[in-house]
Structures are given as C-alpha cells and as structure tokens.
C-alpha cells in the first residue's frame, strides 16, 4: 500500500439543525441539532479499500456525502489529494493553486472538478437508473456533463471500456437496452459503469450490494476488488454488513453515533475486536455454519437519538461493560497495535 493519502478527514463535524417551532420558541427551548457526524478523523491511502461500517444513524452515509461536497461540513476539513473539499463545496477561494486552478472557478465548476475524480455508487440499482434512458446514454451522460468527449467514436470507446470494466461484456450487447431489460446485478454494473466512465480515483460505494441476491453480491464485490487491481481505484465502502466488508476491504472503521469507535486492519478488527461495540457487532453477525454458532452479545434498544448525545462515552448507556467513569469522560483513541486504534476507557 502506498503511504500517500488520497483522502484525509480531519475532525469532521456535520450537524443538522432541528426545526425550531413556535411552540419551542414560546417555551424558550434552545435550538437543537442532530449530531450526524461528530468529530471523525481518518485517512485513506491511494489504492486502499476502506470499509466504513455502522448501523443506520451512525453517520456513515453523511461522511460520504461530505466527501463528495454534496453537503457542507459544519466544522473540520476534508482533504482530497491535498485540497480542501469543504472550501470547494462552499465555493470559497483556495489559497494555493491546484492543477486546474480550482480557486478561480465558480462553486458549481469546483464541485464538478471534484466529481470528475471522485464518484459514488448508490444502494438501489432499481431506483438509480432512469427507466426511459438506454444503457448507452446513461453511461455516456457523465462524459457529456463534463464535456470530456468531442466526437461519437471517442464517446463509444469510453462507454465500451466502462461497461466492459464493469463486467458487461460485450458492451454493444447491452448498450441499446433499457434498465428494465436487465437483472438486478446487471443494473448495479451499469451504475458502476456510470461512475467508472469518468475514470475516477476515488469511488464511494454506499451499500452497493445490500439489495442484491447472494450470488450476485459475490459478483459485485469481486468486481470492486478487481477495479482496484486493474485501475488502482481507491474505494470507500459503507455498509452495515460486517461479513461482506470482511471479504474484500483492507481496513475497517466502525462508527457509532457520529464517531469512529474503532479502526484498524479488517481481519484484525473482525478477529480481535477491541471496542465493546465492535465486539457486539461481530458476535451477532450470522455465521453460515451451525458449528460456529457463538454466544451473541445483544445490545438492548437501538442507537440513541443523535440530538441528545449521551455524555461521556456515547456508547455507555448500551455498553455491557460500562463503569462509572464512562459516564464522565469522553474516551480518547488508544493504540492497540500499530494501525489499530479504539476509543474505550477500559482498554
């Protein structure tokens, strides 16, 4: 793995204001915010596949949205290849000149420049394709938006390459069809081709297989893995499924209530989880073998409301090991082994 980080997230915060009603105002209630992402830091090396795992409401999708400039961070920095995305997203001038001199561009142009290099694959292949557009046009659209091709031959060549890289071979067999003529797995390949056609350096895959059947799931995961091998693409894979993440990612970051609680090499995190939350998640993940049934460490209730974040360690109300001190102080990261960190006072 190269040491150069393509993505650096530095104490990222994203808070969403809660609607302040007349009633709240009369009762003099303070303005409230949803702490969707609450101080997240991590780096992703070029060519690395990082899994961002967590339950719904943990903030993993919000992190992805902020990286792509689709939302503006409340605080903190996101550096993509050394450039601050937050500034791009706000349309603010950057102090240093980038290769394309992004600072001089309008906000829209800046975001587009970012999207040429960082793309997203969404969860639902049934809803993310326009049913009235042919596959060719769906995949070619990003090229047109970014004005990257000047003639038909060039466009065809790039669409063909993207479709074939995504496993739709031969491309001309598919490109005149409409999405409803394709299976779920093939549609997800089209979605991936639409992202690949720009030849991005970073791919954010948000639960790309959770809607798919077992066998197709394996195909798509293998495809993502091959993209890294063939093109050196960096992938941020967000999921709630530890088992699929365990299969093809290099490192894993576990999120709980807007924070990362544990981060380290995937195999190490799954085989020797340190944070009680990760331990619980690993213990309840179904194992496809009755001989390997484990004792489940079931956490009661659900992820608390991110408006009122518990004081101290935010996991303490559900933590089976919680002690008095966990209610008071916010645990810092402790290095367990090299590259493996967890935020728990009991470590």
């Amino acid at each position, binding site marked *: 793995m190269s040491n150069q980080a393509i993505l650096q997230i530095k104490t990222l915060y994203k808070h969403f204001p809660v609607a302040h009603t007349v009633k709240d105002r009369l009762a003099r209630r303070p303005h409230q915010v949803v702490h969707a992402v609450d101080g997240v830091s991590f780096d992703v090396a070029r060519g690395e596949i990082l899994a961002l795992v967590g339950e719904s409401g943990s903030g993993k999708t919000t992190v992805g949205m902020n990286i792509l400039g689709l939302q503006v961070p409340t605080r903190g920095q996101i550096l993509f290849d050394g450039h601050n995305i937050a500034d791009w997203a706000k349309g603010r001038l950057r102090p240093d000149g980038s290769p394309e001199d992004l600072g001089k561009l309008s906000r829209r142009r800046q975001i587009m420049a970012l999207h040429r290099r960082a793309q997203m694959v969404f969860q639902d292949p049934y809803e993310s394709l326009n049913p009235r557009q042919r596959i060719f046009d769906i995949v070619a659209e990003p090229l047109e938006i970014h004005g990257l091709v000047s003639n038909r031959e060039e466009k065809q060549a790039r669409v063909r390459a993207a479709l074939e890289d995504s496993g739709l071979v031969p491309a001309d067999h598919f490109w005149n069809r409409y999405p409803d003529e394709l299976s779920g797995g093939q549609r997800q390949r089209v979605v991936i081709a639409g992202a690949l056609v720009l030849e991005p350096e970073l791919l954010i895959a948000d639960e790309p297989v959770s809607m798919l059947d077992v066998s197709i*799931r*394996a195909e798509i995961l293998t495809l993502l893995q091959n993209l890294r091998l063939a093109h050196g693409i960096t992938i941020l894979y967000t999921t709630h499924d530890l088992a699929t993440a365990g*299969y093809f990612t290099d490192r894993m970051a576990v999120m709980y209530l807007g924070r990362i609680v544990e981060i380290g090499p995937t195999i190490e995190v799954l*085989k020797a989880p340190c944070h009680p939350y990760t331990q619980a998640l*690993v213990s309840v993940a*179904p194992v496809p*073998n009755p*001989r390997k049934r484990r004792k489940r460490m079931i956490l009661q209730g*659900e992820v608390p409301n991110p408006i009122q974040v518990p004081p101290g360690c935010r996991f303490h109300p559900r933590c089976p090991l919680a002690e008095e001190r966990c209610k008071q102080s916010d645990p810092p990261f402790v290095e367990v082994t090299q590259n493996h960190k967890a935020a728990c006072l009991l470590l």
Partner: protein
Amino acid sequence: MSVLDVRDLTIQYLTEQGDALLAVEGVSFSLEQGRSLGLVGESGCGKTTVMLSLLRLLPEAGRITRGQILFNGQDLLQISEREMRAIRWNGISMVFQGAMNALNPVRTVESQIIEAIQHPDMKINSQQAVLRAGELLELVGIPAKRGKQYPHQFSGGMKQRAVIAMALACNPSVLIADEPTTALDVMIQAQIIELLETLQKELNLALVIVTHDLGVVAEMCDEVLVMYGGTLAEYANSDTIFNDPRHPYTQRLLRAFPDIAEPGSELASIPGSPPRLDDLPPGCRFQPRCQFGEEQPICVQQRPDSIEIAPGHRTACHLIAELER
C-alpha cells in the same frame, strides 16, 4: 407425527396468454412441532410461492396442480374454503415479508392486533381482546402500554415485533416468517432472531424461516431446504447442509456467501443467473450453471428426481453417485 407434511407440491401460474408456467415442481418436506425449517434460495426460486400455498393464499393465477399439504394429517388441498379459514391464523400463521411497513399508520398498534384476535372463530369480547393484545405485546418484548401508540412512534425493530405478535394472536402451531430479518439493522436483526428462538421454545412452535440469508438459517434452523428454479435441490439437517453439502448448487451457494468467522477468504459467485419460468431448461434446472453438468447428456435431457442419499438427506442430482467418488 409431523405437524406439517408437504408431498410432491407442484404449482403453476397461468399467464394472460393462457400458458401455464411451472413455478414449483415436486417439492416435499415435513416439519415437527417445536422444530425449525429454513427455506433458502435465490430470488425467484419459488420459496415464497411454496409458503403462500401452505395458507392457500396464492394469487389468482396460481394453481396447485399436484401434491398434498398435510397439516396434522389433514390435507389442506381437499378441504373447503370455510374449513381452511379455521386453520389460517389459528393453525398456520405467517409474518409476511415487509409486513412491518404495512401497518396502518392511522390506527394504534393495539387496535391492529385486536383485529387479528377477533377472528370470527375466536369467541372473545373486546375487554378480553385488549388484555390479550397486551399479553401478546409483552410476549414479544414490548411494554403493553405502548400498544396505545401509533406505528410511527415505533422503531423498525418494534414494528417487526408487533407484526410477530399479530401472527401469534390465535395461538398457531406453525409460524411461517418470510424474510423476517431482511432490511433490519444488524443489532435489531439479532434481537429478532433471539425473539423467534425464544418464542419457538416457549410456545413449542413449528417455525419456517424463508430467507436468502444463509447466516440466519445457520443460526436458527434445525433443517434446511435449498430450492433452485422451483425444485428441491437439497434437503437435510442444518449441520449436513453447511458442512457436507452434496448438491453442486448448495456447494456453490455456500462459497458465494461471505463468512465473518473467516475474513479475507475467497468468494466465488455462481456464473449465469437462475432460469426464468418461461424458459426452463429441459433437463436439470441447474445444469446450465453447473460446473459438472456441462457435458453430461443426462443432465441436459432429464429432470433429476430427489433421492434419499442418507436418512433424512435428500438431493436431486444425476451425478450424485459420481461426485461422491
């Protein structure tokens, strides 16, 4: 005696053009009281069709053309709709896929459970019904007083619990759950698995879990029926299916499923896709995707019958004897 005994079940769907599509062919299994069966297979393999036929709730175009469904020895295919109504919900009950999202948003959860309790055959007054609804909610781990709330005040996990409570309203002996954990978060999924296990023990339920998640089946089922293209591929106890599978499809399916206990291991997808009902291969339905059946004339031409290769272990593959060697 088995509480549920399905023999040679064959179901067709009639198309608008009048063609008959074979959705399920020759599926047999049995289930004893207090045991659990996992029904697994890819989308479109006929697992939901089989389950709906147990309750005689197939869509209008569906016809059961052959076979028997014996519930406590009585053939459900021979009785009148009136008699069937006495068995539906009281004898065999079902948690439908996505039922938690189908709760009525403008009625309290309690009133929706009461609706299930006040089944025409259950002589029960409204006061008793309210008490019973409370009991049912407590049974699935929801405080009875929360029954007065509306579905939007419930979290996803609680809605799923409420739907399970509803299915248990009339004390069924068989509970069918179609994808009960799909679309739930990991931790909630574990809570629901634990709940179903507890209920199964406490109420001595015969439980049928329909799912594509092999992990869930391995966690909670005693027996497993693997379906492919509307037919039985392999049927055995759970330990055999996961540790000594014989049918090439079962073997491939297991290798396509990531195992969290073995992170970093290889995953192998199954090339091709499941057969379409209007284009079924003439021989073994798995033959076009099977690594062993490619060149074998018997696999291309003839449907394999399911044979018992060991006590309680049945599989439908022509090459089973050869693969053994």
